[in-house]
């Protein structure tokens, strides 16, 4: 995390350009903006997202529906329909190349070979008219230039690696012959099959039932550790993030509002939105009490508030918050960046209030 604290603008004017200086950084997203031009105006689905991910490390992106986390993933993969979509700005540095500058031909080689993706809906992510062997081997043939027989053998290997029993028989089966959990394993096997450097998992467990969710998360963790690939996990579930990844980024209204290690962010949240998310988790210790919720609703994408996008719902907001938008600020003493005026000198007075609430919330959860 080497963004400079940047007080007034979320579009880093001081932004560094060019490839990341640290060769260990596999993926660095800077100032990414993805807009959708629709009949009623422009939806700024992603409006200045920055994060970076080191080789072999794991990053979770959390946020509620519509905050732009999936669009971020689709933008990295360049799977958006353009138009109505538009990548309005930013850089996506992956392994020394800016993906946004790659010609489509080379981008196609990056997909599947270097970046693989696991989808939310295993029931519909496999083509019903092909055997799963055909589907896994297609990518292998495309990217590794081996013949069909060799590709099938590798497909069997990757199915075995994700713990599917009798893989030799499974490769000949069609998706409708499998349960959701097995299909998600097949999707993971597909993602693995070309030894990607980065795996993007977009809500991989949302469509599965709870017992299978745990298995799939375990599996994703295991294959990530075994293969050494970096993992970008997108979810709305804080528990999934807490269990699976090392670093996390919290998104709200198309922006990253807080980012840092999972322990720091979840145990010492530095942004009121993160705090709101944490306090709205039901807990055994709060039995009988009213559940805390974040008041208000997500702003209308056509009429975003002028200053901080979270200000209208924020219990700690003051005039400053609706006048200007804070940048991501480094928090002294912690490896965390937060997009909040509480961390400026003029927010210092309110900071004490915030800290009190934050400590109380986290203690209630930890206890």
């Amino acid at each position: 995390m080497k963004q400079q604290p940047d007080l007034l603008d979320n579009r880093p004017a001081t932004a560094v350009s060019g490839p990341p200086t640290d060769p260990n950084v596999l993926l660095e997203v800077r100032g990414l903006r993805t807009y959708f031009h629709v009949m009623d105006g422009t939806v700024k689905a992603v409006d200045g997202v920055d994060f970076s991910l080191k080789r072999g490390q794991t990053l979770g992106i959390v946020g509620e529906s519509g905050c732009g986390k999936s669009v971020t993933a689709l933008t990295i993969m360049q799977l958006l329909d353009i138009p109505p979509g538009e990548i309005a700005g930013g850089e996506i540095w992956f392994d020394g190349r800016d993906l946004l500058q790659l010609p489509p031909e080379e981008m196609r080689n990056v997909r599947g070979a270097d970046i693989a993706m696991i989808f939310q809906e295993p029931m519909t992510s496999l083509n019903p008219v092909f055997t799963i062997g055909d589907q896994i081997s297609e990518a292998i043939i495309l990217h590794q230039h081996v013949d069909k027989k060799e590709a099938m053998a590798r497909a069997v290997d990757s199915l075995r690696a994700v713990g599917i029993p009798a893989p030799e028989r499974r490769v000949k089966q069609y998706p409708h012959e499998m349960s959701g959990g097995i299909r998600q394993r097949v999707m993971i096997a597909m993602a693995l099959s070309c030894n990607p450097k980065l795996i993007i998992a977009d809500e991989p467990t949302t469509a599965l039932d709870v017992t299978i969710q745990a298995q799939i998360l375990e599996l994703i963790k295991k294959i990530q550790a075994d293969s050494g690939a970096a993992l970008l996990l997108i979810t709305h579930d804080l528990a999934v993030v807490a269990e699976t990844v090392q670093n996390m980024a919290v998104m709200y209204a198309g922006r990253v509002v807080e980012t840092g290690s999972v322990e720091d962010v979840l145990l010492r949240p530095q942004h009121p939105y993160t705090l709101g998310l944490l306090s709205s988790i039901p807990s055994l210790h709060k039995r009988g009490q009213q559940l805390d919720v974040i008041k208000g609703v997500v702003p209308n994408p056509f009429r975003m508030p002028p200053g901080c996008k979270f200000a209208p719902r924020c219990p700690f907001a003051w005039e400053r918050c609706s006048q200007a938008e804070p940048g991501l600020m480094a928090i002294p003493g912690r490896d965390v960046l937060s997009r909040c005026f509480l961390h400026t000198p003029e927010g210092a007075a309110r900071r004490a209030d915030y800290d009190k609430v934050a400590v109380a919330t986290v203690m209630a959860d930890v206890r």
Partner: protein
Amino acid sequence: MDEITQARIVETPEDLEELLTAHPDYDVQLESLNQRQLAWRRFKRHRMALIGSTMFLGMVLIGIIGPQLLPFDKNSYIPLDQVSQNGRPPMVSPYFHPFGETTQLQYDVLTLVVNGIGLSLLISVGATFIATIIGTIVGGVSGYFGGWLDTILMRIVDAMLAMPLIYLILVFSEFLGNGSASWFTIMLIFALLGWLQTARLVRSLILSLREEDYVDAARVAGVGRLRIIFRHLLPNALSPIIVAATLSIAGFITAEAFVSFVGYGISATTPTLGNILEGAQQAIGQGNWWWAVFPGLAIVAIVLGINFMGDGLQDALDPRAKI
């Protein structure tokens, strides 16, 4: 023990029961039928479809084998004096052989009808084949890429559909064949004007299929766009395309009959079902009813057979249908 190592497909619970009683230690593994087997099973249960396809395949068989079995030249009308030379007296009723002969123009109606079935089927099946390929490519590309390409292609289709196609066929046939086109020319005209509905159908199918998650999954795997259209999307759209193609054969049969009947089709000396009917116009007034009835029946049998078959295919190929 060795029958246990042998795989066996069990279709019903009763079979399974029986098998398990015979071999209590049988290792049961579920082996489900694939889509093709399921479709065939549904098709078999559709009685009208079975009757229809028997009718249609029967006509195809007559069209292919019939001309080989008949004693007369298969490409031209058979003057009656040739029949006489074969040692049979000229007859004026269907009672000499079931399809009868005619005196006025001295043709053997059986030979005409058998050859006509073959040629009419050749034209309509060939035209359907070409039209389906064109329509599938245009519709597939249009639906997947969208944008200006889609707009241009679909406005062309709209413009062509706005014209009454049957008159367009007449004009083309007059222009290209001077009123006596070869069967190949007629087939091409049909194909070039007959892909419009297929293109629309395929476009609409692709439009909905391209939103499926497995398309994104294929794109994520780095699969190219044309390969996604033709290998991932079209196989999923195949069933409705097959059904539409089947039904369009029937359309082309009647269209050919109409075009030939009004005298713009294949040269009058070539026996297609339409040409035979055209020749029968005067004959029927003179009491030679069999000259019109038998080719007419052939058309009815083919069209009816195809329509029943298409109906059955529609039900059988629908993946959402119950067993």
